[in-house]
């Protein structure tokens, strides 16, 4: 990871924190996971133009793909609220202290 990548990662972290707080979410307390996911997002932004969710695939349809740009919580609120975290796990509900205990529920079970 270059210096520029590290700076971008810090910028995303700063920006995301401002956005997810009012939504009732925070960064996962699993620092290693947060770090890895942010690194992937920096890479995805460089390769594909936006920090897309590292655990969701792009369809090629812009309107759909914009709904998986991190933080994508507002577009999947109902589902994520049931899991108490977003799909990739970068963000969890503010009351979560043990993210490992949270299941990754498919949409039809949420």
């Amino acid at each position, binding site marked *: 990871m270059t210096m520029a990548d590290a700076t971008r990662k810090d910028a995303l972290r700063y920006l995301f924190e401002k956005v997810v707080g009012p939504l009732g979410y925070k960064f996962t307390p699993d620092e290693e996971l947060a770090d890895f996911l942010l690194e992937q997002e920096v890479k995805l932004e460089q390769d594909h133009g936006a920090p897309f969710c590292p655990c969701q*695939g792009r369809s090629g349809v812009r309107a759909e793909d914009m709904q998986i740009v991190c933080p994508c919580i507002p577009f999947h609120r109902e589902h994520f609220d049931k899991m108490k975290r977003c799909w990739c796990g970068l963000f969890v509900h503010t009351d979560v202290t043990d993210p490992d205990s949270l299941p990754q529920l498919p949409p039809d079970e949420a």
Partner: protein
Amino acid sequence: MADEVVLYTLSTCPWCRKTKQWFADNQVPFELVEVDQLHGDEQDAAAEKAYQLSGGRRYPVVAINGEVVSGYNPGRYLELLKKSGG
């Protein structure tokens, strides 16, 4: 008869990594389709297949003997493997 397990994953996704690890740890052989590591038509076809199977674009997508699990869900994997006597 051996279980037919196919994992559709993204290299950027930690849950996909955990899924691969789970099947490896449990010594369940699987076919791996790392969608974002494919190119061109091959990538499009794999992404489309995962979409058809799961009805969404969230990864990992796990197909066990034709039944599909969306996400990292060891309990469900085990259930489907046991169902087939695996």
